[in-house]
């Protein structure tokens, strides 16, 4: 291992900024967040970064390390290539300062997803089979690091799409609710029209960056695209609904369901 590590850390705010270079002695078994903490404790006490658990469980310390979205607490220094390590804030969200971005977009989207709507709870509790909840359990591993939202080019490169795009994190939320064995709501049209599922062109970057290894594209987005096809695009399914006089829920109905 080299004796020194050099970090190029973005410093700045909404008015602009630049990379600042810090060189400090390497220590064994360090992750990027350890080095950032050492910089804070010595050279730059006001270097802004978010972190909480430092064990890959809370999803706070997302940043772009050498250009790729990573959790700083889960990225070992000795696994990065030789040379300076670039640490930049997540690109998709407005910057607050240094490595901290304003991720409130995600909290706003969260509000727009209609909650779980179960039937009334029986006296002795709900019954669900393990095989019926396993798909949902995979999606509920999500630690909300928002790196899938960050890497998704639909909003990363096209700011104007944000108002009508929920993003991968919330596609798995929709999938979890729609696949729930007890849920009574139908959010497919809401997901198509307001969630912007059709904007996703399944280039799978969300799956690539997910620190929880959730198969976002294969297990949530594509199955939801197929369910939207059932609800909207499939001509035979449309005919079936006409004959059987069934209706799919409108976005409005999905939002007011059970209220």
């Amino acid at each position, binding site marked *: 291992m080299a004796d020194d590590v050099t970090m190029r850390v973005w410093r700045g705010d*909404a008015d602009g900024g630049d990379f600042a270079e810090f060189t400090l002695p390497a220590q064994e078994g360090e992750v990027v967040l350890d080095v950032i903490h050492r910089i804070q404790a010595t050279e730059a006490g006001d270097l802004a970064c978010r972190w909480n658990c430092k064990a890959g469980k809370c999803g706070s310390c997302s940043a*772009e390390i050498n250009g790729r979205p990573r959790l700083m607490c889960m990225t070992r220094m000795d696994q990065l290539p030789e040379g300076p390590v670039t640490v930049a804030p997540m690109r998709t969200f407005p910057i607050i300062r240094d490595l901290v971005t304003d991720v409130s977009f995600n909290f706003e989207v969260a*509000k727009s997803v209609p909650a779980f709507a179960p039937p009334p709870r029986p006296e002795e509790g709900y019954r669900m089979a393990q095989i019926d909840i396993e798909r949902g359990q995979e999606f509920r591993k999500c630690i909300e690091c928002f790196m899938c939202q960050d890497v998704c080019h639909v909003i990363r490169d096209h700011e104007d799409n944000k108002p009508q795009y929920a993003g991968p994190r919330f596609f798995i939320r929709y999938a979890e609710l729609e696949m729930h064995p007890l849920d009574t709501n139908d959010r497919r049209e809401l997901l198509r029209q307001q969630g912007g599922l059709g904007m996703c062109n*399944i280039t799978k970057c969300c799956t690539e960056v997910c620190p929880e290894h959730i198969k976002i594209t294969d297990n949530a987005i594509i199955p939801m695209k197929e369910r939207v096809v059932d609800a909207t695009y499939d001509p035979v399914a449309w005919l079936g609904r006409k004959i059987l006089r069934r209706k799919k829920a409108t976005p409005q109905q999905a939002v007011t369901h059970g209220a």
Partner: protein
Amino acid sequence: MSVGGATITPVQLGGARGGPSARTLRKDRWWVQPTITVVLLTAFVVYSTWAVFVNKDYYVGAVAHRDLISPFFSPCVTGSCVAGAHGTFFVIYWWHITPALLILLGPLSFRVTCYYYRRAYYRGFWQSPPACAVADAHTGYTGETRFPLILQNLHRYFLYVALMFNTILTIDAVTAFRLPGDGGIGVSLGSLVLSANAILLWAYTLSCHAARHLCGGHVNTFSRHPIRYRIWKTLTPLNARHMQLAWASLIFVALTDLYVRLVAAGVFTDPKIF
């Protein structure tokens, strides 16, 4: 109590983007993957176009004691097909250009709308995005919400078409074990090539995301639909290898055509194994 507010409000937020305005900060060779995709897909298109329009050497018949047909030309349903190659009960006489053009539309539509290939060509050709955390090459973006890309949603119908072709190519593979005028049934390298091609195509088709949905993925309570759950559970690991199967079957279908073509052109004879 209001649940999420009774109205649908678009998310509107301000704030300036931070960080450097570089196209990407990645230092690895992110361009390798899309380049490989472009090269392979282009090679396939060039080869298949040539094979389609050269319109000969796609069938090895009784003269050579074989019954091998190129997957590009099967089912050979036009009147212009070489003797022995065309279908028995259904023949289109008004189609005069190469029959492969008509035939390839089926499998092609399945591959073009396939969730994996979409990823491959959106990244490789359309550069939207070329790689993760590398900027999109286009300023505007509407995804698959408008014509023509909205038609990608019809993928499941092309799945049915692909299943039909798989059946036909399976019959082709089975009949390739008949060696006319050469002792009835036997195994030749050509018959094995056609069999392997059919198996790969089945594996690719069944690993399709639409198949996984239609066979069971649409069910919410697996516990009440044990058979659909079994099928879904079987297809799921296959689906995880959809990309590998897409490439393997694509390359192999071209190699199968090449094999039949070389035998038909008399470059070498199809060796009989036993």
